[in-house]
């Protein structure tokens, strides 16, 4: 159902005119709504006898030209966010690899505890984990944030990789074993590299989530973008600039996340072209890592039940 045009008739001249009129009307309505919003925000307000300048008044935005503000926002805020996200991403992938291998072990008393552990970490809020590590392990804010993000996302990446391993055609493993590889060799040299490459889009999509989740560090007091703009600069410049600073944080987050999302999407398309063309029934994975995970899981289960069925 990729072509939505199947759903309705190819519009004739009248319908086309109607839909164009609708388009224009909604566009005008939206622009008018936005204009009203901006005008309302920009209107000066009376508060206890003092007239507050509007939200887009130059008096609220003059900090934008302050180079020191920018060097603080970029140097401390963005850098703090990226530093935490980068280290957490590397650790999460490493942990995910280990967990996926343990989770798909043939020995039950390795496989089952790992599964329970993964379920446990997946079901908990990251924020709670951060607070836990901060208060219990006493590692300081940076490592609390990084390790909580690494554990949580590592569990999710581990699940994705496991689904990738299970979903591989059985022939891969059989071929490797018949060439005289030991089971571990087959897993590490033949199966795992393929699973990793197939699951790469999910992993990168999960890293976008990780980057977004670094903002939770605000709550445990680690100086990242949000804390730097809203708390440090907010109290330095005063309440008057709160809205301005929020807008700056918003735009910076959007830029970072959209860049990474675009990369994830490009990667997904590329992987898709390479690995699914000509295989028949190659389904594209949805953007959202959660949904992609479900689909991968289900495919893996389908593959398993297939191979257990009557031959």
């Amino acid at each position, binding site marked *: *159902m*990729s*072509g939505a045009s*199947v*759903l*309705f*008739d190819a*519009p004739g001249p009248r319908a086309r005119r109607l*839909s164009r009129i*609708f*388009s224009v009307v*909604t*566009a005008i309505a*939206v622009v008018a709504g936005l204009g009203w919003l901006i005008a309302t*925000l920009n209107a000066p307000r009376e508060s206890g006898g003092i007239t507050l300048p509007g*939200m887009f008044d130059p008096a609220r935005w003059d900090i934008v030209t302050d180079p020191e503000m920018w060097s603080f926002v970029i140097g401390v805020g963005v850098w703090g966010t990226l530093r935490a996200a980068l280290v957490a991403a590397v650790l999460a992938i490493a942990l995910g690899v280990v967990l996926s291998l343990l989770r798909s072990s043939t020995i039950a008393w390795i496989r089952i505890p790992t599964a329970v552990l993964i*379920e*446990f970490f997946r*079901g*908990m*809020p*990251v*924020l*709670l984990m951060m*607070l*836990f590590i901060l*208060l*219990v392990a006493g590692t300081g804010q940076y490592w609390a944030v990084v390790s909580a993000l690494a554990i949580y996302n590592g569990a999710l990446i581990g699940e994705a990789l496991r689904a990738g391993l299970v979903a591989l055609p059985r022939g891969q493993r059989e071929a490797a074993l018949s060439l005289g590889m030991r089971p571990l060799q087959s897993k590490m040299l033949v199966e795992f590299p393929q699973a990793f490459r197939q699951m790469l889009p999910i992993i990168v999509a999960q890293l*976008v989530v990780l980057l*977004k*989740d*670094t*903002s*939770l560090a*605000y*709550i445990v007091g680690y100086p990242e973008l*949000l804390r730097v703009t*809203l708390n440090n600069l907010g109290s330095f410049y005063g*309440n008057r600039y*709160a*809205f301005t600073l*929020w807008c700056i944080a*918003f735009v910076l*987050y*959007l830029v970072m*996340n*959209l860049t990474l*999302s675009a990369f994830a999407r490009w990667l997904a398309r590329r992987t898709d072209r390479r690995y699914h063309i000509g295989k028949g029934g190659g389904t594209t994975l*949805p953007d*959202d890592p*959660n*949904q992609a*995970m*479900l*689909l991968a*899981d*289900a*495919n893996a*289960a*389908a593959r398993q039940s297939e191979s257990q069925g009557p031959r």
Partner: protein
Amino acid sequence: MDVVIANLPLYLEGFSTTLLLLAVGGAGALVLGTFIAAMRISPIATLRVIATVYTEIIRNTPLTLVVIFCAVILPILGSDLEYLIAGMIALAVYTSPFIAEALRSGINGVPVGQAEAARSLGLGFSQTVSLIVLPQAFRMTIPPLINVFIALTKNTSVVGGVGFVSELFGVGRTLANANGDAVIAVLVGVAFFYLVVTVPLGLLATQLERKWVVQR
């Protein structure tokens, strides 16, 4: 363990606030998300563009930023909402694009042939969508939707974390500060209440997905 048992009423109170946030935020997100999804498949180009832009922007904004906007920036802009309500709005707005995407990918999962067959039988847009596509999309949509709700359950902790609503996470933080000697027990107690909601939902989602995909 004693701390948890002694403060059980507090825990339950926090838990019920969490459930309230989950229910109201989830219902709001469902309504908003359905609306966005409908806009994304509508024949009117402007609506499609608006819905796409909205989805992209919200999906790439951290939840913390949205919650802070509703709880801190909105009062500066002159609203006087209660923090609990602000938190619900933030959760609903943040979750709505994920719901819309889940619905849309369910609709996209229905084979084109189904819609083509319906169209060739002479059904119109609304008939095709409501009688042919949506009933089939429904079963592909439920597991992803459950997943969105699991994420929402975990996300309610952010509303408490920003510090205005005393839900499960807020209660946990207060208790952890008050009982410095039993932090582990306090926080494991909080985790337990989250897991009570998330793990069964997760198992349900996997189960349903497994059942329905194998049938295809």
